């Protein structure tokens, strides 16, 4: 099993979720995040004082899935989240050793 961590722009969340569902992914967990990268934040002015907004709003998705679905899922995320603008985000893949469904106690592939 793998864990995909995808950082995407917030307004792309629905598109990514739909693409993933289409790619056969049934579950995922999202959270709010702020990202720092090549896409630079603006310099804002508040009451005459400049300040750098270094971190930009992103959504962070976690998807645990079978090894054989990883490629399709990454492709789904990539095509749905891509706006060809800087800051579109990243996909990271990590290895997962075990998964458990709390309700049933099922483990492994059955749990996800």
């Amino acid at each position, binding site marked *: 099993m793998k864990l995909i961590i995808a950082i995407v722009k917030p307004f792309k969340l629905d598109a990514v979720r739909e693409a993933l569902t289409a790619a056969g992914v049934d579950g995922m967990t999202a959270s709010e995040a702020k990202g720092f990268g090549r896409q630079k934040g603006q310099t804002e*002015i508040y009451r005459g004082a*400049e*300040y750098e907004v270094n971190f930009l709003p992103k959504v962070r998705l976690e998807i645990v899935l079978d090894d054989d679905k990883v490629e399709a899922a990454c492709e789904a995320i990539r095509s749905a989240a891509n706006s060809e603008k800087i800051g579109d985000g990243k996909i990271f893949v990590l290895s997962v050793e075990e998964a458990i469904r709390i309700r049933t106690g099922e483990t492994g592939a059955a749990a996800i």
Partner: protein
Amino acid sequence: MFMNKLKNFGLIAGLTVMASPAMAEVPGETAFIFNTLLFLIMGAFVMWMAAGFAMLESGMVRSKNVATICVKNVALFAIAGILYYVVGYNLMYSGVDAGFIGEFSMWSPDDSAYLGETPDFGEGDTYAAGSDWFFQMVFVATAASIVSGTLAERIKLWPFLGFVALLTAIIYPIQGSWTWGGGWLSEMGFADFAGSTIVHSVGGWAALTGALILGARSGRYTAAGTPVAMPGSSMPLATLGTFILWLGWFGFNGGSQLALGSAENAIAISQIFINTNLAAAGGVVAAMIASQMVYKKVDLTLALNGAIGGLVSITAEPLAPTGGLAILIGAVGGLLIVFSVTVLDRFKIDDVVGAIPAHLVCGIWGTLAVVLSNGEASLVTQLIGIASVGAFVVVTSSIGWLVLKAVVGIRASEEEELLGLDKSELGIEAYPEFSRS
């Protein structure tokens, strides 16, 4: 009382009239009721400003200090009311006699002249003693509210309330006695219709003194002295607070006509409403344009401060100007806001909500601007009034702050500040939920 103000009675929107026999048309008791009603309703509007300050400040501090600013605002209004009853009012209005101070005694109403078999309602200029007390009380609370905003996010709760007690029981009433209590400044002809100096600058000076003694929030200025923005937690609450203040100001200035029992007074109050509104409008527009030009973006908080700056600017003379002049006076106030925010930062004076630009700087400007429309006012006297009140408040406030600092300490530790006063002082968070669901 109010001798200086009473002088204004004959002056209607820039046009002086003779006391006419027609004034007798409103019977004495009817006028008495009108005057009393004016104080009560306009006083209630001013009381509502306490909520305005609470919301403005809640919106302009960071979340971790919001509950504390709420408790300060509720408590200061309570304390101001009690102390102005116990000592403040008589210190301001009783037996001042062209002097420097009234009496140390508890206020109690005396309406005996208006009751009984043969009541005497004077020339239509009488009112229930209690209604006047109420109207005066909400003013002192306003002065105290100003201080809380500037010093937010770093001052400890109880010492702050200690200063509020000093300000509302002693400092405000004594300087107030000089003009509105019929003291030496009123004798000189110092003109401050509704309190640009006597209320707003007083709060502003006390805030400035406190800001200097307390120091800036940690992290507010870099080592190199560059200001670091600390955006407030909620712009809609700040906006709500400003609208509340704007509404309350009709009471603040309108009620300061002090009488409604004649057509002249009714006409005067109408003019005051108009000028109050137009000055606020001028302040908003000027601050928006200035912030667009200087910073290339409209800064909402400066627009809000601009409204308040306009309102403070017209407060010293909301009656005599034409509407057009009121717009200009307010607009200058709005510009002063935008620029003095920057100047304060240059001196590393950390004013969380912009109370010093709005109440002190515009308070001074408004007091000077009286001479633009009120022919009886003199620039020199206005300057004397500004300076003497300023000096008195700076000195007495400094003593108050320094004694509090020495005895109990006034500043939260850096760690408490980082954690936020809500957690360190109240043990309650303004928005405490881990997850909103």
